[in-house]
């Protein structure tokens, strides 16, 4: 089935099998391998992307369900002028260890900060409940998201 999507601002038109998962569409058909597959059961959040501006787990969405929709992956966060403030905050606060969960963490944080630009630490922890870090580096991940919120001063890029 032919689907059309806008991914990181670029239009794509591809023929997909109905059973193709959105994460495989992004990784295997568009070559956007920044989005990782972790648990593959919508538990871990490694595959988190933005669908029409909101975080979703792309292992539990069919590519056909994204037909006509707007997607942002980790590759769409940085601009020519540099890293997105959330990425920068992760870098500066050592918000990653092995890095596998990081793209999902950044995308979940981007969605969350849009809803709640000035969160408390507790709210950040609750917001990231669907994203697992098996290095257990949560402390600095939360610190990074709080730093990003401050850096963005409530303005979502």
């Amino acid at each position, binding site marked *: 089935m032919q689907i059309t999507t806008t991914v990181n601002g670029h239009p794509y038109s591809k023929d997909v099998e109905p059973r193709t*998962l959105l994460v495989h569409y992004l990784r295997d058909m568009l070559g956007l391998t920044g989005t990782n597959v972790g648990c*593959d059961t*919508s538990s871990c959040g490694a595959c988190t992307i933005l669908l029409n501006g909101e975080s979703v787990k792309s292992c539990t969405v069919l590519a*056909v369900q994204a037909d006509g929709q707007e997607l942002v992956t980790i590759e769409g966060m940085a601009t020519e002028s540099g890293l997105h403030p959330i990425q920068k905050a992760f870098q500066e606060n050592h918000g990653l260890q092995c890095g596998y969960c990081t793209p999902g963490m950044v995308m979940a944080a981007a*969605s969350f900060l849009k809803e709640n630009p000035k969160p408390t630490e507790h709210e950040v922890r609750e917001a990231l409940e*669907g994203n697992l870090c098996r290095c257990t580096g949560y402390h600095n991940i939360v610190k990074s998201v709080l730093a990003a919120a401050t850096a963005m001063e409530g303005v979502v890029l």
Partner: protein
Amino acid sequence: MFPASFDYVKATSVPDAVSILSSVEDSKLLAGGHSLLPLMKLRLASPSMLVDIGSLSELSYIEDKGDYVAVGALTRHHDVQNSRLLKSEVPILPYVASQVGDPSVRHRGTIGGSISHGDGASDLPAAVLALDAKFVAVGPKGERVIPASQFFVGFLETVLDLDEVLTEIRVPKFSGGWSYQKFNRRAQDWAIVGVAAVSNGSTKVSLVNMGSTPLRAVGTEAALADGASIEEASSKASDGIDPPSDLNASSAYRRHLAEVLVRRALVEALR
């Protein structure tokens, strides 16, 4: 993990979805997909065709109807959770919605999907059961209204016909106390046991993951109606109920949890 192959069609309206469901054997509705797709990936479900109603925006709404609030079946958990109307008129529902999965799951999962999936371990089916909600279903013969108490009949089984579409959930407004107690070990897990209590004249109590469907704690409700204390009423939480044993909890431990959680729920709802 890939689901088995299936055909896919986007429904253009509820009648269109009904007509496809009626004519294609083993076809199944797809809404947010957050209950169905995991089952399909594990090959526990292999429908021949998915009828996607995800783009039927007319099924996503929250409206004041006087003594009840009408929630369109495609309303996402995220929208139920943040609804001002529900927060003021049926506050237990947005709270329970906020306890489903995690934020990304709540961006996709829908109230109608969760209810028609009918999982006895899910939060929302038990909440609508305690609320005495009613469900509107549309099929080839037209529309019918089904009380929540008659809706859930077995493991992942409801009274919905294969060619019926759940379109609306009608939740009565209430002004009394309420509580939802969810016991789990990890943030985004299903409840090992959960309890919903709604006090509005009489007190309704329902249980999560104590059987193959959401269940009313009839022993507790009858005791309360007879003027029993909270202590006494909660000791009857699992009267007539035979909870399952699984990796998370034995049947006996579930009974214990039900008693403790019903007590906590009643203390909160009746204070």
